[in-house]
Structure formats: C-alpha cells, structure tokens
C-alpha cells in the first residue's frame, strides 16, 4: 500500500459538484482506470480517500489536494496519467507524489489563496482605502448559523490578506488569503462583511470564486 498525494483542478464545467459527490467521481474514475484503491478495515469498509477542506459549491480551483491510498505498486506519474484519461471533463490531477502512510493531509493544510470576482451595483470610489480601513479593525464579525442558533463570530484572525487586483467598470477582482482550519470562514463570508462595511455596493448575486492554491506546510 502507498499513499499518493494529488493536487487537482476543477474548472467552470464542474464547479457545482459538491464535496460529497466528488468522492464518488474519484471512486468511479479509479474503477475505470483499473487502479486498486485500499479499503479501511472494519465492519463498514470504505475506500481510503481523503480530501482537503471543502470548497464552496460553485467555486473553481487550481490547487486542491486529496490523498488516495492505493493497493498496488504504481508510480505517481503513471497514476496521474491513468486517472486523467478517465476523469470527467473539467477535473484534472496536475501533480502527484508519494507521502508517508502516516502523513495526514488534514494536519498539513495551513491556508488558501483565492481570486474573487464580484459585480458592483454602482461605481465605488477609493475602494483601496476602504479596504485598508476595513482590514485595520481587530474584529470583523459575521453571523454564523450553528446548532445552538445564530451567533456572531470574529473572522479577522483568519484573514491574512485582502486586496483589489483588478478594477473594471462593473466588477472587481480581489485577492484573498485565508487561514484554514477549525472555524475558518470562506471568502464569501469575508466579502459579505466587506459589503456590509462599505454600504452594500456589491451585487452579491454575481460573483466568481476561484481557489488559486492551497498552502501546505
């Protein structure tokens, strides 16, 4: 048995596949590629595939990670090639390498970088300054729903970077860098907080979110 760590992309065509459905996509692809995946022992055996943190449904990525334990002696490169032949259009493994069997992906993931594009309802002046002010605050609160009801949480500690990288007449593009882990917000939470802060100038119905990279330790 060996553990292969894979970096994969998901483009526009498949951005609405949920995290759960993606697992099935890979399982079936493995069967099409005729690659033997390892199964967990126990009463209800399941394939040993683990994903990094879930991407928001509707977002694209060029840097998500997943580990697959395989039951055969296959080189990472061969694995990658075989899988790419059978994956549905829009999903591609761009990098594969072997890691130790006790190397858990979940403990390696530190943060992620995103590009977020959003339409604006009317032109916004000096957005850069506003963002600077916004980022200077110690507390950025958002409302989160949990089992015990709604509560306000501070997401500021997770936000490593937020800047405008492109300004068009009717939309903006942001670069966002977030810490990942327990309780971490997604970029849309941040966008919503910013939108509230600047007085509802974004058209929150029209956005595109792209994960540029996941930062591993």
């Amino acid at each position: 048995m060996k553990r292969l760590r894979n970096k994969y992309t998901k483009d526009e065509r498949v951005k609405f596949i949920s995290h759960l459905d993606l697992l099935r996509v890979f399982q079936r692809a493995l069967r099409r590629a005729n690659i033997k995946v390892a199964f967990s022992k126990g009463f209800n055996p399941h394939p040993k595939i683990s994903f990094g943190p879930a991407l928001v449904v509707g977002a694209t990525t060029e840097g998500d990670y997943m580990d697959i334990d395989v039951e055969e002696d296959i080189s990472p490169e061969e694995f990658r090639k075989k899988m790419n032949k059978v994956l549905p259009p829009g999903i591609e493994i761009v990098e594969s390498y072997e890691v130790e069997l006790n190397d858990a992906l979940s403990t390696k993931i530190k943060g992620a970088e995103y590009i977020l594009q959003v339409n604006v309802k009317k032109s916004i002046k000096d957005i850069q300054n506003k963002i600077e002010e916004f980022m200077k605050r110690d507390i950025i609160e958002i409302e989160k729903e949990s089992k015990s009801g709604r509560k306000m949480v501070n997401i500021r500690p997770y936000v490593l970077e937020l800047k405008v990288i492109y300004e068009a007449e009717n939309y903006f593009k942001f670069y966002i860098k977030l810490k990942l882990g327990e309780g971490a917000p997604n970029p849309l939470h941040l966008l919503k907080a910013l939108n509230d802060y600047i007085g509802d100038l974004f058209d929150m119905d029209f956005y595109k979110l792209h994960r540029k990279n996941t930062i591993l330790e």
Partner: protein
Amino acid sequence: MNNLKDKIDALLMKVSKPTRYTGGELNSSIKNPEEVKVRFAFAFPDVYEVGMSHLGLRILYHLLNKREDVYCERVFAPWLDMEKLMRENDIPLFSLETKTTLDKFDFIGFTLQYELSYTNVINMLNLAGIPILSRDRKGLPFVIAGGPCAYNPAPLSDVIDFFVMGEGEEVINEIIDAYIDWKKRGGEREEFLQIVSQIKGVYVPKYYMEVYNQDGTIKEIRPIKKGVPEKVKKRIVKDFGNAYHPEEQIVPFMDIVHDRIMLEIFRGCTRGCRFCQAGMIYRPVREKSKEKILDLADKLIKSTGYEEISLTSLSTCDYSQIEDLVKKLIDKYKDKGVGVSIPSTRVDAVSINLLKEIQKVRKTGLTLAPEAGTQRLRDVINKGITEEDILEATKEAFSAGWTNVKLYFMIGLPTEMMEDVEGIVDLAYKIVDNYKEVKGSVKNLKITISTSTFVPKPFTPFQWTAQDSIKDIVEKQDLLKKKLKSKVLKYNWHNPYMSFLEAVISRGDRKVGKAIIKAWEKGCKFDGWEEYLNYDKWEEAFKEVGVNPHFYANRERSLEEVFPWDVIDVGVDKRYLIREYKKSQEGRITPDCRLYCTGCGVKDFDEGVVCFEASKK
C-alpha cells in the same frame, strides 16, 4: 458577466442540487450545435434524478447522438426552487448540454412515463416560452411525445404536435430523415405534419376528431384528413437481439434514483397479469443473447466505473439463462467490487438462489409482489403464484439469513372484497410465523407491506372496469393500518387522490385534456409528488371545464364502448383482451405464454414479429 450562462450560474449558486442543471457529466455528448442539421431536446417531465434513472432516455440519447447530423440534448423539469428563480429572472427553460433555450431546437421530444407528469409537460413548454397549444405554434420547434402513456394520446392531443407509438429506436431515425429533407426544401410547418402522418407509428392528433354520443361516451374517432391511417400501428423492434444498446452511459454527479448501470436483457413479458399495462404493450418478448449481454456489461463497466449493474426487464428472473448469466457476471466482476442487481424477484426457489449469488458482492433486499391477498383474487388478476410459493420462498430466504422482506400488494382490484384485503393481513402474519419457525423468535425481523391502488389502464383486460371510489380505498387502507400494527410490520400506502387522478387521465379523452390544462393554469405541477399534489385545484379544474372525473375513473364500460385509444393498435388484439376479461370474472387463469401461445395476436401483428414462443420452435 451577464450572458445567459452567467445568469444561470448566478441562480445555481442559490438552488438545491445545482448539478441537476449543469450537464457535463461523464459520457454526456459534447458537440458543436452549428455543425448539426437537427437539434433534438429530449424532455423528461420530472426532475433530473428521476428522469436520468429512466432507461428509454438513455437509449434514445445515445442512439440519436451516434448520428453526426443530430445533436440530442437533455432537459428536465426544474425543481420548484429553480423554477421560481427562473421565472423571477426571465430565464427560459434551457438544455443541459449547451444551455440553449428550447425555442432554438427543431424537436422537443417528451417521454410520457406516468400520467401525473402531464402538468409538468405543459409547465415546461410554458417555461420555455413555447405556446402550450399545438395550434398556436408557428415555425419551430415540433413538440412530440412517446412512451407508454402515449398509447392513449387523447388527453394531450391539444398540446402535442405528433405522437410516436411504440419503440422509439425503431422509428426516430425515419422522422429525423424526413425532417432533414423537409427543412432542406424549406417546407411549411403543416407540410411536415402531413409527411410524418404517413410514417408508420406516427399519430398526428389534429388529423382526427372525437365524435361523442349523447351520454358522453365516444361514438367514433374520425380521421378528418385524407390519407391518414384509420388506426395507427405501434412500431416494434424486430431484431431486438442485435438492436442498439448503448455501450456507455451518462454518469451523473449527483445521486439519482437508480444510480447504476442499466442493461436491458429482454423486452416484453409473457406472464399476462391482467392489471399490467407494460405486460401487454411491450409484447412480444424478445431476449438478448447471453454473450451479447456479457459483452455489453463489460463495455458499460469500463466506460462508467459504476459499482453496480442492474439487469433490467419487466420480469428479470424469467430470462431464459438467468442463473448462468448472474453467476458469470458475479464471478467476473466481484474482485472489482461490482455488484449485480435484479429489479424484481419472482417468488420461487430459483430466485432465492439468485439472490444468494448476488449477495456475495453486495447486500440485497428481498422484494416480493404477491399483488393480492387471496388465491381467488390472484387468479382473477392472473398472478400465477400460490400461497405455498410465497411461504416457501420466504422460508428459504429466512434460512439463508434474510431478515427484511418487502411485500407489494394492490388494493381496489376488480371483484375485491374485504376478505381479500384481510388476506393481506393473514399472509403477512403467516410470514411472521414462518420466520419464528426458522429462527425461533421474531428478533431482527422486519416486513414492509406496501399497497398501491389499482388503476385500470388502456390495453389491458381490465380496461373496462371501474376503479374503487376514494371512500372505499380509504376504508381498505384504514383496515390495513389497524390490522398491520406490530413491531415487526410496517405498512405503507399510496395517496388515493393520486391514484384517482391517474385513473381519470389514463383512460381520459380529449375533454379530460382541457381539465389538465385548466389544472396547470391553477398552479398544478409535480402532481406525482405527494407533497405537491393539490387535489382541490384539480377538483375546481374539472368543475370549470365541465368534466366529471368519476365518469372516467369509476364507471364500468360496456364491451361495445369505443375508447379514446382505439385509434391506436398496440398489437394485442381486443378480442384477446375481452377473453381475458371474461376469464377474470370467472376466476380462471391463463398460463404464461412461454409454455404455449395463448393467442394475444401480436405474433400476427406485423411482418417479422417473432415471439419467444415461435423462436423456440
């Protein structure tokens, strides 16, 4: 970013299960619409996960896309959340593959699988901005329909431009060819309808009219266009063994109702259950060879990666080499973790053995369909099984380790009395005793008893019978609810209003069609989904168009009555149906026609039609 695709994407961010609308699944067809001559939208009037579970769609989709000059795309009824957003944002109904609005297609082809999807047909046309009445349409597209319910075309006659009777794979290419020819000539819309009316199996409703008697029954169905056939004969795939079956299958991203490979091993059924429409309209029985099936299975497993393969047909255990076939499949694919499933189980030892084999790879449930609670009633409906069969099969299954059994019955069958309903209860408790005998106690036992309500269907020996009133059905259900109370028994029943509507529409005439449109105007859709059925609205609709629904559902017909579907010839002779009807009243059974031909007439229906029986000789 404001083109249609972006607008749709914006909506998809907000709806449940967005992959219902995205397309792009593995093995779906990607073509350049500019490069084809015909664009065909295959429309299923229900939500994606239901429609994608349907074999007919899968066959025709791949068959059409094999042609270079045709691009077949899919469209389903958007779920209510999506429809609401689409209407609010002025987004017309679009195809999954290329997000093209339906008005840009040459054909919209609906498959009619159940009557309670008819309001969805109308709703989908409306969502696409296409007039719901055939006569209001100008230019393209043509709205066509097929599938089992199309055999009574009357209720949707004002909506559908033309119906295709019988097995679509046999006739669709002829229609497409005629279309290409017509389009090249730049013909009028009307002219094309005339051309297709000459293609065997095509029924153009506007070329016929229903003439009524004083009492509201039909006097005749009169052809009102010169040269159209008096009766439209269904099309039958003759060389089924070599007929097209896709070697690939779309693999949806989301979990659908039947999320597995569907491999059709034979078509038709010889059992002759008198309530069963499928058993009559899909005659004759035609099998694929074992070699062919194994070859297809291999290709399908390789092209989909599915973990399960379902051998489909109306009665899979009747396949002549079923044991050998299942064993071969299990042996070959068990190491890959691919399981086999069979959709319905016969009540006998062979079937239990099959299940044991299947169980080697994946746990499988035990589902039996005695259909009626007493022998008398089982004889009436010609369900050729006995109580001993059922008890023996369950005993065998319990010994082999099964603890869950599902039993399917029908209530409201012709001649049914309360004793017959009580018979369901008795049988259930006998099975419980059976389990005790084998296992010593009722520990872990779970028996689920489901009753559906009998709906008399066109082209069956029961097409003359009355459906039970809703009141009677409720009474029978209440009895079962009361008597099937036990820790090990669970009782499920079917909404009686739904069965009533199904009965009205399935034997409806063109007048019923007006009520369907009215009900849709009042907001009815997804009537097959219990939580969305609004029966009060239907009742208002019937009243407003002056249709008495009980006339259609609860009236016994005389043998002389002309039916709305008599304009269609499905191959099974009316005299045979009458004979079977009479035998049912006398409680006499008719054997499976695999043993010998019982004379339903399909053998002599058309040149080249070969029955199982005949091919054996």
